[in-house]
């Protein structure tokens, strides 16, 4: 498959209400969500969103309830029309597509998992799962073969003849996941796709996603409330508040340099040992003592701590792939970086 398309969102604004277009200018001039709501009764959904998601990567979107995550993801397949701005997918502006073009785009380029599952209640698990392929007009045998593979992979084999209301919430969510994956589109939009799953199945589904990502690189937009999940899956993370992006970057950048108190609170509970890499705590240059072990710069602190504590010398050399020494790191520095900052 050709590389999955990049997604670029440029100066995107969304105002909910009957006369949204009249108020864009005011919002661009800095009117806040509360002011807009008080003065005009319109709701500011998104404000000046700019996110570039490279093709084939996983972009995580986080933020509190009502911060506009679902609104944002719905702009990518234009379930919601923006009030202003561009959504470029593979260089084509989704906002300017005609209805036929949009339909083809949705059929072949995107698949979506919904926060509230949105299964078709009158169809069985199997008939829900084939839906995307069915409306593309593929032969039934092809549809069923693809669907059964994913039904099995999400652990619902044996349930394909059941109706959604005969399944638990977590099972329904996995049907939604199987339905999206069966579509085999290069872009996957996942709105809190794992939120109803128990921790074990959740880990398993995260692995499904990461395995899939090794096989065929898709561009995945993933919404979650769980920072550990975000850090495990996300190549990049964007954090929303009140419809605005307040910080974006790699997980490590956000954990180490939270842009403000809000994000600092967000990242406080995270397991830093699994996120932060050796390179960001080492002392550049210098000589390692005799018998020191060698760490790679992208080893996590957890890996580094385990190996250093087993070694007799408590300082390690950090070396790149070519063997050149980049710097040194002490066990105390690693442990200090792993514990969470005090209030």
């Amino acid at each position, binding site marked *: 498959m050709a590389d999955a398309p990049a997604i670029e969102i440029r100066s995107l604004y969304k105002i909910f209400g009957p006369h949204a277009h009249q108020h864009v200018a005011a919002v661009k001039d800095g009117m806040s969500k509360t002011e807009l709501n008080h003065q005009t009764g319109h709701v500011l959904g998104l404000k000046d969103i700019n996110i570039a998601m490279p093709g084939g990567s996983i972009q995580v979107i986080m933020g509190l309830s009502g911060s506009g995550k679902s609104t944002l993801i*719905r702009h990518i*397949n234009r*379930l919601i029309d923006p009030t202003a701005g561009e959504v470029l997918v593979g260089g084509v502006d989704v906002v300017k597509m005609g209805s036929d073009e949009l*339909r*083809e*785009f*949705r*059929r*072949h380029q*995107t*698949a*979506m998992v*919904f926060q*509230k*599952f*949105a*299964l*078709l*209640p*009158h169809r069985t698990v199997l008939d829900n799962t084939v*839906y*995307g392929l*069915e*409306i*593309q007009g593929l032969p039934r045998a092809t549809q069923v073969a693809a669907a059964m593979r994913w039904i099995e992979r999400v652990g619902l084999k044996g349930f394909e003849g059941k*109706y*959604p*209301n*005969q*399944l*638990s*919430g977590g099972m*329904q969510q996995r049907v939604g996941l199987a339905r999206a994956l069966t*579509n085999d589109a290069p872009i996957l*939009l996942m709105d809190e796709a794992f939120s*109803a799953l128990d921790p074990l199945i959740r880990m398993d589904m995260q692995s499904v996603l990461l395995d899939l990502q090794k096989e065929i690189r898709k561009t995945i937009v993933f919404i979650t409330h769980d920072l550990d999940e975000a850090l495990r899956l996300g190549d990049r993370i964007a954090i929303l508040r009140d419809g605005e992006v307040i910080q974006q970057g790699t997980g490590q950048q956000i954990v180490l340099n939270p842009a403000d108190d809000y994000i600092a609170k967000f990242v406080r509970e995270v397991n830093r040992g699994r996120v932060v890499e050796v390179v960001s705590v080492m002392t550049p240059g210098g000589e390692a003592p005799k018998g020191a072990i060698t760490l790679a710069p992208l080893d996590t602190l957890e890996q580094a701590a385990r190996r250093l504590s087993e070694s007799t010398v408590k300082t390690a050399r950090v070396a790149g792939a070519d063997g050149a020494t980049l710097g040194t790191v002490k066990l105390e520095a690693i442990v200090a970086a792993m514990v969470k900052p005090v209030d």
Partner: protein
Amino acid sequence: MEWLSKFPNLSDDTLRVVKQTIDESFRAFTRAYGEGIEAFFNPLKQFLIASEQVMISTPWPLVLLAVGLIAWFASRNWKIVAGTIATLLIIGLFDMWDDTMRTISMIFVCTLLSILIGVPIGIAMSRSNRLQSIINPVLDVMQTMPSFVYLIPVVMLLGIGKVPGLIAVVIYALPPMIRLTNLGIRLVDHEVIEAADAFGSSPWQRLKNVQIPLALPTIMAGINQTIMMALSMVVIASMIGVAGLGQPVLRAINNQYFALGVFNGLAIVGIAIIFDRVSQAFGRRLQKHREVVHG
């Protein structure tokens, strides 16, 4: 001060002219287009006659068997089937079989016609708020206007007979079909529609795969209402020549035959109950997997 005690109405002359003009122009319309309109409705008339013929000429045990089977497949409920058969047997015993068959045939054609007209209008209405605001008052008029009033132009145009009777019944029975189709489609969960759109459904695919199936229980309630309203029109329709259980009732009123009136009236009630129970049981069966649980 006379204008206070007597409402200042239009003068009698003016009113007479207005009424005369309307009547004259409608008569002219009838003369000019009556035959064309009659020809237009001819296929309907043939269909009505054929359906009545089938119902009457089929041997009664076969009819019983067929009705029993339909009741079974729609409801999967032995009590409803037994009640249906018993009602029909009693009706036959009291010598009302042929009239009942005529009435059932008329109700069948009328319901079919209401579905064919009502569902598409209901669908169109669900897609446009403007259309909804135009059609709703028309439906209000259709339901509240006394049925005798629209019998007049229908009879003027088409004379007395099956077709004008059918048209009058359909006008009266159609509104719930349209309203409940519209309502059913509007009530379909917005998220499910979004999911259908997100996978690239065309408007037709969305309608066929999602909206109609999910609105079906409500549409079935509309069909049930339509049948009940059509049955309530049986006696009025018989005044303009629709054969069936209504005619003996009409004769009973004119001649003060109490027993005749009661028997035929009860027969109408009997088939109303059959239609109601069977169609409701069918609606409930459709509903089984449709409720969304767990969010």
